[in-house]
């Protein structure tokens, strides 16, 4: 394989403190030169990619993804999710374990990693189940799962509700510095709900969950984290109240982190309009005040990472009366672009956005990826932030098409994605 020289690109890697026009050289699967000032060290026979001023950043690290595999292959397989990821500039996906069967067995962790390798375009970092079957009753074999390669433990989109079990799990995990990811939602308050408690939910007659459901679970787990000193991460934060609790806990120095998803800083509950099931999510879309608070959390750094929260659904899962429809939306292809809206509107700088999408999730998951540093694996994303594209459900890469952003015109086009030095996505000229 010829070495690849990227020229005429703006290199952005917040972890290395790089944000400058320059060149980058890839040999085999590694980055061997960054910002080569001259042609010195440049091999004679190499493939030259002229970025024409586009941005070259580390491949995105998406720390919250559901694929349909194993168990729901009709929704999405690892292979089809990998297509969508490549088109979205994502080179690493952390996969939730609440599949069928749940990833509560070391062999399944190994299988998922191998399936990721087989795609040759995206690494899969599996989360292990926190409880057996993700059912919240018995502690899973989490240290064995970690040994097999699980990068953290969670019950996916179910909160571990039993306080005693959560305390024991956190104590146990802290013994080997395991990472616990919580879906922060009190299940008894959230049961059967399909919207956030509001005038809109009342008007539409939809069963609703108060924002307190998020705050209550976060408050409980922060207390347990303080007691156990366990590494704790909250997934898809969606409320101002929940975020405030995390902000205060961080100020106290607790060992915690959190992410949010583009839907929670870009959309509010109005998107459900007259029963639009593609905007039915878990947690549900919140009020405009909550959305603005999430934006603020991105700006002030309380939120560490942005994850797609990709959750594939089939048409038949969605074409139902609202309360019966399955929650969740796809997000791999739109992750970068929806985040760039926050750059366009001045809330975030480009390096901040790339930190949230690449460096920070890699740091939380303790992976030496998400950087352009010399010697690191050449996982790269080349994108033009100034070109727009339109989301068209039915025509998106990957199998699942349940995007909540249908018809939106979004900034930022991924021109190319490289995994370990191999080009895995190239935008077709339109």
């Amino acid at each position, binding site marked *: 394989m010829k070495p690849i020289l990227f020229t005429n690109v703006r290199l952005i890697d917040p972890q290395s403190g790089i944000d400058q026009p320059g060149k980058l050289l890839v040999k085999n699967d590694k980055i061997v030169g960054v910002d080569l000032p001259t042609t010195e060290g440049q091999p004679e026979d190499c493939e030259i990619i002229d970025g024409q001023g586009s941005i070259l950043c580390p491949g995105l690290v998406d720390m919250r993804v559901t694929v349909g595999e194993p168990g729901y292959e009709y929704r999405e397989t690892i292979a089809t999710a990998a297509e969508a990821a490549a088109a979205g500039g994502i080179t690493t996906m952390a996969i939730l374990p609440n599949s069928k069967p749940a990833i509560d067995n070391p062999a399944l962790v190994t299988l998922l990693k191998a399936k990721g390798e087989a795609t040759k375009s995206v690494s899969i970092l599996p989360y292990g189940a926190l409880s057996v079957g993700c059912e919240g009753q018995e502690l899973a074999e989490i240290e064995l799962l970690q040994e097999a390669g699980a990068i953290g433990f969670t019950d996916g989109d179910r909160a571990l509700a039993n306080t005693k079990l959560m305390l024991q799990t956190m104590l146990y995990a802290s013994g080997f510095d395991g990472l616990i990811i919580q879906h922060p939602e009190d299940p008894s308050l959230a049961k059967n709900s399909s919207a956030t408690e509001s005038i809109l939910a009342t*008007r*539409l007659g939809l069963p609703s969950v108060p924002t307190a459901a998020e705050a209550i679970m976060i408050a409980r787990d922060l207390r347990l984290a303080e007691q156990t000193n366990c590494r704790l991460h909250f997934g898809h934060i969606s409320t101002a109240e929940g975020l405030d609790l995390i902000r205060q806990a961080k100020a106290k120095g607790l060992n915690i982190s959190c992410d949010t998803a583009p839907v929670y800083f870009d959309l509010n509950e109005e998107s459900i309009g007259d029963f639009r099931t593609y905007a039915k999510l878990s947690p549900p879309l919140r009020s405009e005040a909550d959305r603005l608070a999430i934006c603020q959390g991105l700006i002030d750094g309380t939120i560490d990472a942005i994850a797609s929260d990709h959750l594939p659904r089939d048409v038949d899962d969605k*074409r*139902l009366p609202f309360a019966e429809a399955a929650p969740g939306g796809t997000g791999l292809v739109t992750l970068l672009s929806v985040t760039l809206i926050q750059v366009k509107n001045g809330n975030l700088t480009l390096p901040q956005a790339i930190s949230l999408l690449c460096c920070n999730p890699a740091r939380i998951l303790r992976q030496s990826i998400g950087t352009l540093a010399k010697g690191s694996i050449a996982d790269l994303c080349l994108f033009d932030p100034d070109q727009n594209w339109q989301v068209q459900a039915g025509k998106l890469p990957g199998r699942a098409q349940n995007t909540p952003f249908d018809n939106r015109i979004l900034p930022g086009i991924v021109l190319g994605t490289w995994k370990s030095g191999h080009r895995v996505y190239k935008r077709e000229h339109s």
Partner: protein
Amino acid sequence: MDKSFGQHFLGIEGLPAEQIEILLDRAENYALLNRSRKTPRNLLRERTLITLFFENSTRTRTSFELAGKRLGADVINMSVSTSSVSKGETLLDTAYTLNAMRADLLVIRHAQSGAPALLAQKVDASVINAGDGTHEHPTQALLDALTIRRHFGKLSGLTVAICGDIAHSRVARSNIILLNTMGCNVRVIGPRTLLPSSISKMGATPYYSMDDGIKNVDIIMMLRLQRERMSAGLIPSTREYFRFFGLDRRRLNLAKSNALVMHPGPLNRGIEIDSHVADDPHQSVIQEQVEMGVAVRMAVLEKFSHIKAQP
């Protein structure tokens, strides 16, 4: 079809006061024709009306059936127990099937909020909402309004108290919207567990004490209390509920002396309403509501079907 009306009738929300007046005027006329047995039986001739009930209902289904027949439509009743829905066919499969049979009007009742809206996206027929989940029951609100208007000659300026399980009531939602649109003062009365926290933003003043809420009102609308509210822990018992939120003679006397007592039926006697009040010949208009129901549904079928009204 009256061009000013849309293809479907999914709710009171979005219906302007003028259209509500038109429907009420038409219904008033139909009420007279019903009594004289001179309804225009050719108005919906050659038109097929299918009532599609995914929830049990005797009175609403019968009322729509009568309304359709009095206008000359071919009426077919489908209910869950006799349809293939119980065999796993989805709502939309059923909709596609009925659409292929070229039904002109689909009257639907469903336990889920938004089910008629989903159906309306997929069929050519006019969809009439006969009650969806806890969302809307628009013909009930119209028949309530017509009943009130016949007694007071107007709607604006009246004070209406809706009492009971507001949180789970589509009747309450449609009535709150309609009565607000027509300039009434709306109160809602019930234990806090049965009143949504955001109800005041819908234009209804909440009262947690029935004695306070009922004072000086012109109309009292009682709602049916579902027994499952007890098992869900929203209220302790029917006994306690009746003690604090049941309508009896003493409480009725706190309202204006000519206040009307209404109930969408079916009644839970001794749980939300005392029999003496329910059957009071001067103040209870529960039977009149049923009569107006047929008239209102005739007006709705006329305005939302594809045929011009006869002069």
